[in-house]
Structures are given as C-alpha cells and as structure tokens.
C-alpha cells in the first residue's frame, strides 16, 4: 500500500479523480515545467555560488522540501483549502503582529519568527493566505463584486501588506498586494494602489527607476552592474562559469535577487529566452487550470497564483535588466533562498490540486 493512500486517503474527494499515479494527484505539465526551471536554476546557481557544492546542496534540500510541499498540497482537495483559509489568514496576521512586537523590542528590521527549530517568515505565508482569503471571501458572493465587497477585499490585501511593508519588506509586501490584487481583479474588481505607504528610502528606490545611472555607486550601482552583466552576455553568453561580472563580485546579490543577470551573462539572450519560455509555459498551465476550475474560490485562487507567479518573474527580470526599480524580489525557482521556494511550490501544489480534484461532469 502506498504511503499516499494511507496518509491522504481520508481526504479523498467524493468525485472522480484524475487517473493514474497510484491514486496520487500529480500534475505532469506543472511538475515537468517546475523541474525544468529548477534544473536551469541549479546550473546557474552553481556558477553564481562559485562552484560551492555545499551551498548548492542546501538549495537542493530547500527544493526537496518545496517539492514535498508541492506533492502534499497537490493531494489536498480545494474545499479543504477553502475551509482552512480564514484560519491561515488570521494566523498569518497574528504572526505578523508577533514579529512586529518582537521587532519593536529588538529595535530593528524583523521579518523572522524564531520557532526554536526553524525560523519562519510569516510574510511568506501571507503570499498564499491573502489571495486565498480574497477568493474565500468572494466564493459565495456573486461576481462582479460590489463596491463594499471591493473595499472589504482591499482591506484583506492592504492590512497584511502594510504590516509587511512596516517590517520593512517592500518586496514581499508588493508581492502580497499583487497576489491579492490580482485575485480582486480576476473577480471583476479594480485594484487600488498603495504607494503612499512606502518609506522614504523605498520611494527613493522607486524614483531611482526614472534615472538609475544618476547614482552609480549608490542605489543605482546594482542596476548598472546587472545591466553590464546581461549586456555583455550578448546573444550566446560568455559560457557557463565564465561570467566575469558574477565571478569577480561586481554583481551584487548574484545568488539571490540578481541571478537573472548571471544567467544573462553566461547564457546570453538565448538562455534568457529559454528560461522565459519555460516560465510562460508554467504561467500558461496555471491560467489554463484557472480557466477550467469549477468554482469561484479555485478559479480566483488558481488565476491569482498563476498571475502572481508571472508578476514575480516580470518584476525580477524587469529590475535586473533595469526596466523596474530594485525591490527585493527573487527569481522564482531559481534564486537561492528558503521560504520563497517552499511557498511557491506549495502554491503550485494548490494549482495541481485544483486541477486534479475537479469533479468530472462528463465521464
């Protein structure tokens, strides 16, 4: 007897599931695309880490944890997700409060909650909990939302976003706003923008976007170095492990936020186009799942998760290539880093579940 049927058997939906995989829900297109992107990511990361295998191994472990989350969430029928949503959301709010209080005591930026064994970023939870909460709120209500409902859903998005921005973690706050806002948008509402909650230095970073080269050694330095890395990669790149910008430490945050530039330098335009194609395929698969979802909650959630994923890619690639201001948004599935990888794969797990646990109307 398989482990899955033992563990998850009780949660099986009443309707028919997709065939195959010994009763497990596995979305092959999602899985293959995720594995392809992650493989590309490991190759680039190996170079960005300076051939440091132990660091790469840690990233591999994170990916393994993320894949576990992916498979786990794949098995959870969406209605359970829906039931848990308010709990997850308010737990997230409570944790954000806890972090804020701890940060107040610690007199500094505080994003992490030390749970003894692991540290945990409540803001990561909110990346999923916020669009889920919006979808949950709209689930039983007719679409498009009324003005009052838009206000309510906006509050669902804004309250945690502001708390995260206060940490201060503008990047994550923006992603939370994007995830929630996209859910509202998909529900038929309009999205208010909350730039005025930004701190001065965050605004400065945004305004810098207008002329990134005005301050070559200040905030714009990273952008310039990233552009040099990408631009000097040319069509075919300098070759794997040959990126001078990355290896000579000219490129900041090259394993994390700026790994897109490492890719561009070493694999050139062709490499970047390949990666973008994989990302778009993944987003396309997500939107396809959303379009075929069967109720408002799953539709909105699937759509929001897919669009948020694209938002990640676009914001990261945009900032690294100098199109957008620099906000700390990692390149999904490629950048080194723990929680965002797990969160992302958990989200894809939800997508798989939404698709895999459909009730087949016609056999």
């Amino acid at each position, binding site marked *: 007897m398989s482990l899955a049927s033992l563990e998850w058997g009780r949660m099986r939906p009443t309707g028919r599931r997709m065939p195959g995989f010994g009763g497990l829900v596995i979305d092959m297109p999602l899985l293959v695309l995720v594995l392809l992107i992650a493989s590309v990511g490991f190759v680039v990361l190996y170079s960005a880490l300076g051939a440091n295998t132990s660091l790469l191994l840690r990233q591999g472990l994170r990916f393994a944890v993320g894949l576990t989350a992916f498979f786990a969430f794949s098995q959870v029928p969406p209605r359970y997700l829906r039931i848990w949503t308010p709990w997850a959301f308010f737990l997230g709010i409570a944790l954000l409060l806890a972090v804020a209080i701890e940060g107040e005591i610690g007199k500094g930026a505080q994003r992490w909650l030390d749970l003894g064994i692991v540290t945990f970023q409540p803001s990561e939870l909110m990346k999923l909990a916020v669009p889920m909460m919006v979808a949950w709120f709209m689930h039983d209500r007719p679409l498009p939302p*009324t003005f009052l409902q838009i206000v309510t859903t906006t509050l669902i998005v804004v309250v945690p976003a502001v708390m995260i921005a206060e940490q201060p973690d503008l990047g994550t706050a923006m992603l939370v706003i994007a995830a929630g806002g996209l859910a509202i948008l998909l529900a038929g509402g309009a999205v208010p923008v909350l730039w005025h909650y930004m701190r001065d230095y965050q605004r400065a970073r945004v305004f810098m976007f207008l002329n990134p080269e005005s301050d070559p050694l200040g905030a714009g330095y990273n952008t310039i170095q990233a552009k040099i890395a990408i*631009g000097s990669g040319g069509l075919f790149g300098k070759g794997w492990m040959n990126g001078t*910008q990355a290896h000579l430490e000219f490129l900041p945050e090259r394993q994390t936020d700026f790994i897109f530039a490492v890719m561009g330098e070493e694999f050139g335009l062709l490499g970047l186009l390949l990666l973008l194609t994989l990302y778009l395929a993944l987003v*396309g698969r997500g939107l396809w799942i959303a379009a075929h979802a069967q109720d408002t909650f799953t539709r909105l959630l699937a759509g929001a998760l897919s669009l948020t994923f694209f938002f990640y890619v676009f914001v990261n690639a945009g900032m690294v290539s100098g199109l957008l201001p620099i906000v700390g948004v990692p390149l999904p599935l490629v950048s080194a880093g723990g929680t965002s990888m797990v969160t992302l794969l958990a989200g894809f797990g939800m997508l798989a579940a939404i698709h895999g646990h459909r009730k087949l109307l016609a056999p």
Partner: protein
Amino acid sequence: MPLQSTRLKDHWQEQQLFFTRVIAAAVIIVLLSGVLVARLVVLQVVEYERFVELSQGNRFRLEPLPPTRGIIYDRNGLVIAENLPSWELVAIAEEIDNLDATLKQLEALGLVDPGEHKTLRDLVRGHRGFERVKLSNLTEEQAAKFAVRRHRFPGVDIEEALARHYPFAEATAQAVGYVGSISLQDLERIDRSDYAATSHIGKTGIERAFEADLHGHVGFRHQVVNAQGRVLSDPAAEKEAEASDIPGMPKSKRPSQGNNVYLSIDMRLQLAAQAALGESRGAVVAIDPRNGDVLALVSTPAFDPNRFAEGISKADYNALTNDQDKPLINRALQGIYPPGSTVKPFIALTALQSESIAPDKELYCTGEYHLPNQTHKYREGKGGVHGNVNLHDAIVRSCDVYFYQLALTMGIDSLANGLKVFGFGAPTGIEISGEQSGVVPTPAWKKKQFSKAEDQGWYLGETVNVGVGQGYVLVTPIQLANAAATMATRGDRFKPRLLLGTEDPITRETAWSEPVALPRVDGPSDAEWQFVHDAMVGVTADLHGTARAAMQGATYKVAGKTGTAQVFTVGQDEKYREADVDERLRDHGLFIAFAPADAPRIALAVIVENAGFGASAAAPVARKVFDAYFAAEGYVAREP
C-alpha cells in the same frame, strides 16, 4: 445584507466574466513579456559592445608599478643616494583573530610603538579585511626578529620595498636634499599618472632639482580584481588582458628606472669641509673656477636626511624646524651675510679699472675714519692703526680706513657695478632651489626698499659701509665662492653647477652636461687682475697677511681674503670685545680663496657664523678643504 440577498450567483455569467479576465491577463502577460524581451534585445544585442567594454573595465585593473629611483653619485662615482631594501610590518585584518592581542605581542617584541596602539588598531579596522595596512618600519634586525616568529602572528607580514638611503647622512643633507612622502603641494608639480605607484618625491636639494631625471617612469601590470578591489591571482586572465585590445586600457609595461645622476661634488672635499666646520654654524662652497663645478657645498648644522626618507615623526620634524640653529636651512644658498672685507679684492679691482686710485697711492690709517664734517667714527674693524698703507697693503692687512676712503672716492654706483659684475645681488642660478639674491645696495635700491621718504635718501656713510662689505650689502656663500672663482679665472664666469651628467641605468650611457658660461668680467686689464691676485696671495703669505697663520706650511699657493662681518653694531665709544657680546651677536668670520694661485683649480668661500674674525675662524676651514683637495692622490677631475 439586503443587497447580497437580491443578487443571485449566475455561474455561467461568472465563468464568462472570469474567462474574459483570464484572456485579458494572458494578453497583458504576452505584452509585458514582449517588453521584457525587447529590453533584453536592447541590452544584449544593440548595446552589446558597450557593455562588453564596461565589463572588461570592471574586470581588469591596471596596477601601477613604481620605478626605481636613480642613484646619485659624487664626481668620483661614490654613492651619495641609493635605494636599500627596507622592511615594513603590515597587518591583514581578516587573518587576525585578536587584533589587540596581536598588537600587544608585537609591542612586547619592540616591533610596534606601544604609544600608537590605538591609532594602529583603528587604522587596521578602518581598512577592508584583505587590505595590507602598514604598522611600522623595521630595521634589518627587527625584520629578522619577526621572521623567526612569523608563525605566531597569522595576518601579520613583512613587506619588502626599496627605501632611499643616504650613506653620508648629514654631510650631504643640504646639497643632495632628501625624498619624502608626496604632499598635496608636490602633486601640483608632477604628472600624477607617472607617480601612481610612487610614494616618495624629492623634496629639497638635488633630489628635488633632478626629480624628473631621478624618478623614472611608472610601469603597469594588469590585475584581475573584484568589485571590492580584492586582487584575484589569475595568470590566465592577466594574459588575456595583455592580449586583448580593450579601448582605453594601456598595455602593461615595466617601470623604467630613473637615471643615475653624477654630481660635481667631491665627497672628500665635502666631508673635509663638514669636519672642518664641526659644531659651528656655517657654510662652505668650493667651486672649480674652470667650469663652475661645485666641488663642495656644505651647510652646518645639518640633519639626517634618512629620517625624512624613512618618514619623520611630527615631533622630530617640529624639533628640527624649531631648532634655533635652523638645521633645515641651506646656509650655502639661503644664508645671507654681510661679506665684510671679502669684498675688498673686488672693490680694489673696480677701483683700479676705473682709475679711482693709483695702486701705489698711500693713505694714512689712524684706526678710525670720519666723514668730512661728521663726528661719526668709522672704526678699523680689527682695531689698531695701520699707518701709511697702499692698496696692496690695504688688502693684505685688511685696512678698513683705506677702503672707507676708497669707497667714497669711487662712489656708490661704481662700487655697486663692480660687485654686480661678479654676480653679487643676483642668484647664481645653481640647479637647486631656495637660493637668495643678496643685496648690492644703490640709491635706487634704497628708494624702492623703504616706504617713508625720510628713509629713502642715500647717505655717504652708507657708501663708506659698502666699501668694507657692511651696511646693506648682503651676499650668499655661493655668490662669494663664485665671485672668488671669477677672480681666479680673471674674469671667466660660469654658472655654478652640481650636475655633471646623467646616466642611463640600462645602457650605461652618460649624458655629460656642458659648463654654462656667464658674461665675462671684461673691464680689468691683466695687470689689474694680477695686482689683486698678488694682494690676495699676500693675504696668505705676507708677514702681515691676515690669513698667513692659517695657510702656513701649505704646499700650494693660496690667494685669499678674510672678512669679518658685524652682526651687532658696537657703540661709538666702546671697543668691540668678543667676550662681552652674546654669542649670537658676535661677528661672522668669512674667507674667500682660490688655489693654486697661479693656475687656480679650486675657489671657495667659507663662512662661520658668530665665530669672530675670518682669519681665525674661517681661513682654517678653507685650509682643511684645500688640503683635502690637493692631498687627494690620483685625483682626476672628471672632465666633461
């Protein structure tokens, strides 16, 4: 919620709405992706060349390499300034576990100054972890001491460099000068790129005057560095940098060593003069009258130029500048003194030439002189009564009263011109800087010098004073020496020079410099020159000659003239008594001379400050220098 209850969920319509939104989102995604791709195409295709260039610039850095400074030799090839290995103790912060403890241990070994513990600690912490921060200079012994204990000091290392060293130390301090750390002022007189790797620059003397020859040219080496400036050793990449044609990046090249410099100085004379001056304040300048070669240029007290090259502490520097003996002043060029009676040969020559006096005309010396209708006494410098003296005797015995009258007969303009043609009142033009002009006073000069009308008039008394080298007349030792040289050559003048030639350190080819002739002193006839020469020989040889004692027993014939310059004006009815006067207000002793008198090869001027009579204070110094010159066996003048 009444509003909600009236609305029903229309699943079909909702799915349609959602579907159109998804389509819209997909379109937006495609558009945004298009923007992104367009951006990448711009960066990676359109602007590719520019970014490649920028990335190359990032990657390769030119490390400037310092050239080795040229060596300074004396005229016989003796090393005066060289480059010796020196050792610096450096700290690399990232390799040190406990900086405080490490410093304490180094202090215990006597390698680091405990007084600078805090300064050094902050200095090390203020640098990036991988940077090498200098802690101290080490002697060879200290370096050895550290070397055997190196294993106990991770992150502390010895760096070897070349440091300027002056083997003759104080003896050459004034003439050769010294090198020191490049200051902001120095930056204005150099091509900064050529000094990119150079830490020291010639500050004074020869080191400064021939900086361009001595310094050489900077070299470059390519380095691969990261954004933090850490140098990565990557020979392959460095080779690539060599091979590639990166715009604006010079090829690597070796630094070209500075030229060696041969000085006209003869260290034997230099050392003899230094020793002869001893503890006293004074200067000696010896010149080869045939070409202007400066054979010795000494100023005492001196200082150890090596301390400057090593890096002198603020306290030590202040001690030198505040020393009332002014050791940093080059008295030979910067000291201005009343020449006293040393001007008498020049005045006598002018007088003969202008027929102001017949050589055998006798005047009666009573020991003091009054201007007509004035009560002011112009005293015989040494006191005493010379009785009837002619011009020859007046020089030999240095009779002031004779020259008082002679000066009055000649008039100030004739006196002044007679001095100016010998180069007094103007810099001689020797290569090293800081030279003073001195003063040859004229009524016009006085008018310019004083602002108040009542001070501007010229008095006969002032003419009288010029006649014995007092009053406003001021000369430098090098002017005196060069005038003595001109006297020796009977009119041929040369610009005094320290540079014999420069030598290419690689090819060993030497470019000898030509003597620079100055306008001749043409007026006097041979007989007139001879008359003055004879009188000057009389100074050292005649029974009453003032320098007879000093030159007694010399194997060569010396023509000279003593001088005693008043620093302090003695009251009208007092007698000058050395013991009564504060040491610093005592007279300066001077002496000029050339030898051999018949065919002069060396002319010199000596001044000993506050030492009393020139005959007893300065002439013996000259004797020692002459002795050194003529005793030197196998001496070969380096003929250009």
